[in-house]
Every structure is written in structure tokens, then in C-alpha cells.
């Protein structure tokens, strides 16, 4: 038997595969395709305090092995979420993680406070790295002090564990990961999307309604992996790897680089049962390689020439 369970300290997962925020709706959208109880967990779509209209279309543009999006966090807000969606997720036997967004630090804290009583919530993921909200694409995750402040404030406001989701659009990812750790974050997850854009030569117009958007998918995997390695080398708290993961071997690559768990994003669109397939592939890999405990692989990169 292969043990692919994961212990993040504040949270035990039956396997390392978590569906990434914004690519898995509220989970319910995927129940026609997979048994939600079989995945490690999932992160719901980014949630603001109030409902959000989101950005004008086009909101998506395909690139070479990548996807650009500027959804703009269209959503129902925290109140409707807790009344309409949470009850539907009662009895779930996977980790339920809530992705939190705010225009101000206080907004993050208020959402964390508001939802804190819900025991079915396993953790919060602070989306301080969403590049879509402001047109200039700047976000708190691009500054170590801002990161520290938000994490600190949210941690004070709630007892639910906090994962801080980092942006790849920075010079030094270790610095930001360390700030999150110092602020009291229980884990970091990375990467969010890369700030990107496209232009249609025919019309000279931007390909996305919001001009800038976030790049995800296999195209970004090599950069994301490097950042996960750097972050995992810098901090003591668990690191969750994200970026272009579409197969068990991709997931294993992130785990060897130092991740304890992974998130699967864009692959959910191309194959709605990606998460389950990746779990199967991880198990098969461990069996083939006679690895008894997946967690032993974490950070096990072989640096001998």
C-alpha cells in the first residue's frame, strides 16, 4: 500500500491534490464528473465581501500552451455564499478552502471573521496576488510589507488556518514567502497567474476586455516550479505548489522541488476529471518506484551531478 496522504500540520489531506481557486467553481460544478470526496480538497472561486460584476468580455484568450484570463472575480459575495453555497457542501469529506479577496486589508479580515464559525471550512487562502482587480495589475503580494500586514491582520481576526497565495510577478519570491511566514501564515501556496496581455493584430485591440490578464497552464510550469523550489528553500511552513500541473508526473515534480501538496488549475477546464486522474497517476508512480510514503519525496531533489 502506498501512503499518499499529506499532513500540513494544521490540516490533513487524504492526498496531495487540491483543485485551484477560480478553476473549480464552488466545487458543485464538478460533481457530475468526479466524486468530490475523493480529492484532497478544493479551493472555491475568489470571494469578495460584496457581490462583484467582474470584467467585461472577452475574459479568456488562449496562448501557446497557456490560458490568459481576466474574469475579474465575478462572484456572489460572502453573504450569499454562506447562505446558498455552503449548505450544499455540508458533509464533504475533502478539505474545503475559501479563497479570500479584498480591496483593503480590512476587507480580508472581515471575510475571515464572517466565515470563521463555519467548521466545514478547513482553511482560508488569501488571494493577495490577483492581478486583475486594479488595472495596473499591482497587488499586495508584490510587496513584502503589504504581505506581512494583511496576513498579520487576518490571523488576528480568525481561528481558521490561513494559506497565503503568492504572486509570481515579483523579483524575489523568497522574500515574499518569508514575509507571509513572519506574518503568521500557516502555509503558502504559489503561483497565482503571471500578468500578461495579448493584442489582435487585425483590430489592434487587446485580446482581453480588461487589457491585462493572468497567464496559467503548462506554459508557466517551469517558472512556477523554480519559484516553488525557492519558496520551499526559504520558509519552514508548508508550501503548496501550483502552476501548469496536468499530470501525476507534474505533481511529483513540484513535490520533489519542495511542495507538500499541489493545486490543479487550468487542467480542470480541459479535463473535468483531471484531479482524480492525477491522484491515480501519483499512486501508480509511487508503486512503480516503490515509494511507500509520498511525503518522503517532498524536497528530495538530488543535487549530485
Amino acid at each position, binding site marked *: 500500500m502506498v501512503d499518499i496522504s499529506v499532513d500540513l500540520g494544521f490540516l490533513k489531506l487524504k492526498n496531495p491534490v487540491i483543485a485551484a481557486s*477560480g*478553476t*473549480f*467553481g464552488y466545487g458543485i*460544478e*464538478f460533481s*457530475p*464528473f468526479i466524486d468530490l470526496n475523493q480529492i484532497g480538497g478544493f479551493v472555491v*472561486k475568489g470571494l469578495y465581501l460584496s457581490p462583484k*460584476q*467582474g470584467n*467585461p*468580455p*472577452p*475574459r*479568456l*484568450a*488562449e496562448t*501557446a*500552451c*497557456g*490560458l490568459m*484570463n481576466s*474574469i475579474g472575480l*465575478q462572484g456572489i459575495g460572502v453573504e450569499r455564499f454562506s447562505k446558498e453555497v455552503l449548505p450544499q457542501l455540508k458533509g464533504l469529506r475533502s478539505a474545503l478552502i475559501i479563497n479570500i479577496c479584498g480591496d483593503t486589508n480590512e476587507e480580508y479580515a472581515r471575510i475571515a471573521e464572517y466565515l470563521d464559525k463555519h467548521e466545514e471550512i478547513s482553511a482560508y487562502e488569501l488571494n493577495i496576488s490577483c492581478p486583475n482587480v486594479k488595472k495596473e495589475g499591482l497587488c499586495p503580494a508584490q510587496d513584502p510589507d503589504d504581505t506581512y500586514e494583511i496576513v498579520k491582520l487576518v490571523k488576528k481576526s480568525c481561528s481558521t488556518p490561513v494559506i497565503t497565495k503568492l504572486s509570481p510577478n515579483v523579483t524575489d519570491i523568497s522574500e515574499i514567502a518569508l514575509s507571509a511566514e513572519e506574518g503568521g501564515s500557516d502555509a503558502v501556496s504559489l503561483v497565482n497567474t503571471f500578468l500578461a496581455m495579448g493584442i489582435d493584430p487585425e483590430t489592434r485591440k487587446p485580446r482581453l476586455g480588461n487589457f491585462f490578464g493572468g497567464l496559467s*497552464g*503548462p506554459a508557466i510550469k517551469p517558472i512556477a516550479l523554480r519559484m516553488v523550489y525557492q519558496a520551499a528553500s526559504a520558509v519552514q511552513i508548508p508550501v503548496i505548489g501550483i502552476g501548469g500541473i*496536468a499530470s501525476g508526473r507534474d505533481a511529483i515534480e513540484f513535490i520533489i522541488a519542495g511542495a507538500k501538496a499541489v493545486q490543479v488549475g*487550468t487542467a*480542470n*477546464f*480541459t*479535463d*473535468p*476529471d483531471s484531479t482524480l486522474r492525477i491522484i491515480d497517476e501519483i499512486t501508480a508512480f509511487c508503486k512503480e518506484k516503490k515509494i511507500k510514503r509520498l511525503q518522503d519525496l517532498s524536497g528530495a531533489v538530488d543535487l549530485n551531478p
Partner: protein
Amino acid sequence: MLKNQRAVIAGKKSWGNDYFLFSLEAPVISRKSKPGQFLMVKITDNPYPLLRRPFSIHARNKHNIEIFFQNTGVGTSMLSQKQRGDKIEILGPLGNGFHIGERSESKKASLIGGGRGAAPLYFLACELVKKNINVTVFYGGKSSEDLPIASKFKKENIRTLCSTEDGSSGFKGLVTDLLETELKTDTPSLIYACGPEGMLKSLSKISKKHQIPAELSLESIMGCGFGACWGCVKKIKKGNTAEWHKVCEDGPVFSAGDIIWD
């Protein structure tokens, strides 16, 4: 309800290098589908092109469904190279189809298709005919080569009027002009349409002017096709408010009056 499956290409037909028709062995999806619904088709197991592509259900019989598509880019080009016997992964049936026979007075329907937009109308026409609804198809294209499935409608004894922009076949002009000409003498109780955005915009105006309800099938870039990504939205009126609604889940068919064109 939804199903993701590998389906064998049981038949393939092509018109030059532009238009293709695949017949796919997919009995479960076939049984469940309604006109106006669509599939998300996986082009390749490789990450390029990354996303699945949406195609309307063009026809169905007990075991098979058909898609009819135009080669317009990297995905459709790669798809067009598949052969009989190859397998492709399809997800469906997706979205809400056209509303059929909900209004008892809808005894006379005009179906307007522009180019590849005619794809879902064949399935729709067949179902309408079954319900004894009088169907006229208006089928427009750039030139005569863009009307490959006109004969399919005619074979079902469906009245089919064609238009081409270059006049190489049928009425010379836009299909909406052809419709307006017809409207002078004859008024349908309902319009169904699928095609380029410009055509659908014109139809919205015609629908309003002539007070004929119209159901329009919209296209939008789709990330998932099943409501998870929020990528495919269009501005749609519901009651007093207009919001971004998902084309894949709330559509692709909307009432002309509810669509806010930009």
C-alpha cells in the same frame, strides 16, 4: 447528466478543406441531447491547443451524433485531420437548447443560419418538423461554397432559401436581407438563429421591429463549457437588471430581447 467520453468517429465527410462533418458514436449523449445544445471537443491529448472547442450538435440518431464545423484556426484544422476510426473525447450535452413548442401559437418558424451557424439548425429543423411546425430555413454564406449543408435540409423536404454575398447562389446579399424580403409577404411566429454576431444583432432589430420573438444562439470563447470558469459571459437582461451571464450554462440560446449588445 453530463458525460465525458471517448467517441469513435464513425463517419467523416468534407467539403474541400473548409467544412467537415463528423459522425460520432455516442449513444448516451445522443439520447439526452436537445437542439441548440453543444459539445466540448478535445482536440488532442497534448497541451497544444490547450482548450477544448465548442461545437453544436448538428444531428443525432439513436447511436450517433454529428458535428458540422468550419476550419477556421488551429483547433478546427487539427480536428479536421482526424480520420474515421479515430477516437475523440467529447463532453456533453452542454447548455440549454432552443425552446420548442412552448408557445402553442408557434406553428410557423423561420430558422436563420449564417455560415457554420447553420450547424445546430439542422437538428432543430428535424425536431420542429416532427412537431408539425412549418419550417423555413434561411441559409446564408459568402459564396456558394459556404452552403454545404443546404442539400441536407432540402432532402428533409424543408423549405430552404439560400443567400450569398457574392450572388453565386440564391439571393444576392445578406441572409438578413433575404429574411426581410420574405417578411414583406409572410410572417413567422418565431425566429431561431445561429451565426456571426453581426447577423444576430441585425436579427435582434428585425425581431423588435416586426415583433417576432427570436431565439439566438451565441458564440463565446469558452474555457470549460460547463459553468466553472466564468469566461464565456455576455450581458443579459433578467427582469430589470443586466448582468454578465454564462453563455455555456445560461445559453448558448437567449431571447433576442434579453441580449444587451455592446
